[in-house]
């Protein structure tokens, strides 16, 4: 895609000189990477805060009382597989295979929704066990971290569904792939953040 856009920009540069452009890369994609870089710092701080306050809660419930590793493993797997469907969707759109694009995109949004369902279940369970955002340091840092991640997933699901709807409103072609690609970059990013959270928040707790 970027090569196509590059050649686009290169040929376009001849017809309409665009002195303000210093890069041949598609703006939206560059912007997305810059955003992801900033979001990395954001999540880095949140995870760092969680670890800094780890095991400093004065009162329960404590992580070990609440975490359910098999359940979280399943939701982690669901999110990973949604990332896989995401690349299939992008691949299909680049092949102008709108049918498969719609199928895989719907699959990504569906898997994302399942992940969110797991999170809602988990949060409800934790709340019943007495964990709230102001119960202890664990509650505060855990809900802020995973809640922020959950908001990211929600935004991703809405974004993908809107792209899906767009494909019915106006024809989507391979040249529109860059818009799906940046949504995909965002989605994969949310996935890798969860890869880190799954390990440092959940798994390490039980070692």
């Amino acid at each position, binding site marked *: 895609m970027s090569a196509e856009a590059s050649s686009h920009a290169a040929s376009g540069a001849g017809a309409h000189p665009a002195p303000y452009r210093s890069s041949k*890369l598609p703006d939206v994609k560059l912007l997305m990477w810059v955003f992801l*870089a900033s979001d*990395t710092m954001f999540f880095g701080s949140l995870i760092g805060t969680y670890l*800094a306050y780890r095991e400093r809660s*004065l009162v329960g*419930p404590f992580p070990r009382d609440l975490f359910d590793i098999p359940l979280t493993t399943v939701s982690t797997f669901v999110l990973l597989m949604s990332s896989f469907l*995401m690349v299939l969707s992008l691949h299909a759109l680049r092949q102008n295979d709108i049918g498969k694009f719609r199928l895989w995109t719907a699959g990504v949004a569906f898997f994302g929704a399942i992940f969110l369902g797991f999170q809602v279940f988990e949060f409800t369970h934790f709340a019943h066990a*007495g964990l709230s955002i102001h119960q202890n340091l664990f509650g505060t840092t855990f809900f802020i971290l995973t809640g922020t991640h959950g908001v990211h997933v929600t935004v991703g699901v809405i974004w993908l569904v809107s792209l899906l709807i767009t494909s019915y409103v106006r024809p989507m072609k391979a040249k529109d792939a860059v818009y799906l690609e940046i949504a995909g970059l965002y989605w994969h990013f949310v996935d890798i953040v969860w*890869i880190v959270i799954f*390990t440092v928040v959940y798994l390490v707790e039980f070692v």
Partner: protein
Amino acid sequence: MSDGKHTSVSTYVIVALILGVITYVEFALVEYPQAWLGSGWTIFLLVALSIVKFVMVVMFFMHLKDDDRTYSGFFSSGMFIALATFVGLTAMFILPKAVASTRPDNRAAQEAGHAVPHELLDNIETRGASRAPAEIADTPAVADRSVSVEAPTAPNDASTYNVTPPAGAAAQGGATASTEETEATASTEATAEAPGAVEAAAEETATEETAAAESTEAATEADETASEEAPAAAEEASAEAPAAAEAPAAAAISWDKDHGAAVFNANCMACHQMTGQGIPGAFPPLANHAVEVYAADGGRDYLADAVLFGLQGAITVNGMTYNGVMPAWGHLADADLADALNHVLTAWDDEPAGFQPYVAADIAARRADGLSAGDVHAKRETLGLH
């Protein structure tokens, strides 16, 4: 971009399979712990596996492997700053601990060979760290944290009492009682017998640390047989210091406003705020509330119980529900708690009708009950607050 440069579907499938397998391995490492691996290596493996997953997604699914270097540049800069933040945060929280042990006063204490006896440690309330809330609510607070000690027998070791000489001498008189009765009672008697001790003892604002330092000083001064008992004797003396302060308070029903504010600011302010307003929804207000509790039937005792033993359970204050935990403050001295309570009752509101400032003896009397945080909550229900 030409299709040839795109990652093929088969690559995606392989990557997805590897990601799935790694996730299962991570799960298995935690769910079926491998004894031969040890926790250190298990954590190392888990982190390594998550890094592999991370890199695979970034390289293949996000296409950074084949894509323009600019993107990688931006992303790695972000990653770098995130890691730096991470390291900085960790350092901020871990380094102070490491540095603290090298501070001169701490080192001096270590070199003097001063160590907290195990019997004492068992009596220190850990404020529920690592215990479930239900367990905290069910556990009665330790009523009497004083340690019964053997009284010094050598006739010449009055030198070990140079912290509060007259009170110490008196305590020696009541020493036989201290093995059977609680030390608080013993020292109260002691000060009652020796009113001359009051001034000296009141000046002695002995914190645990200074008491410890003094105990080592005293130990070096004493002769060999007495030196074994010296820390214990200083312990006794430090316990007396606040107890001794009650005598003038009882006489004049006046209390140390500055000290009350200081105790409040050091221990209570973090949650209840300097203005006593609390934090709506999280920490209940004391201003405009403590006085009405005090005025209720049994409220005076209840307030002392709440600070001594903590409070756990849902309460309603000014129409807002609070469901948190107030830790027990029984490790503070009676006189400190009394002044803090007086501060709470007078700092922001007109003092309640018939207000009698708390004195250390009031707190000491409540201490004997040994309630749990849940008991205190039950007691609150009987006060008839709205």
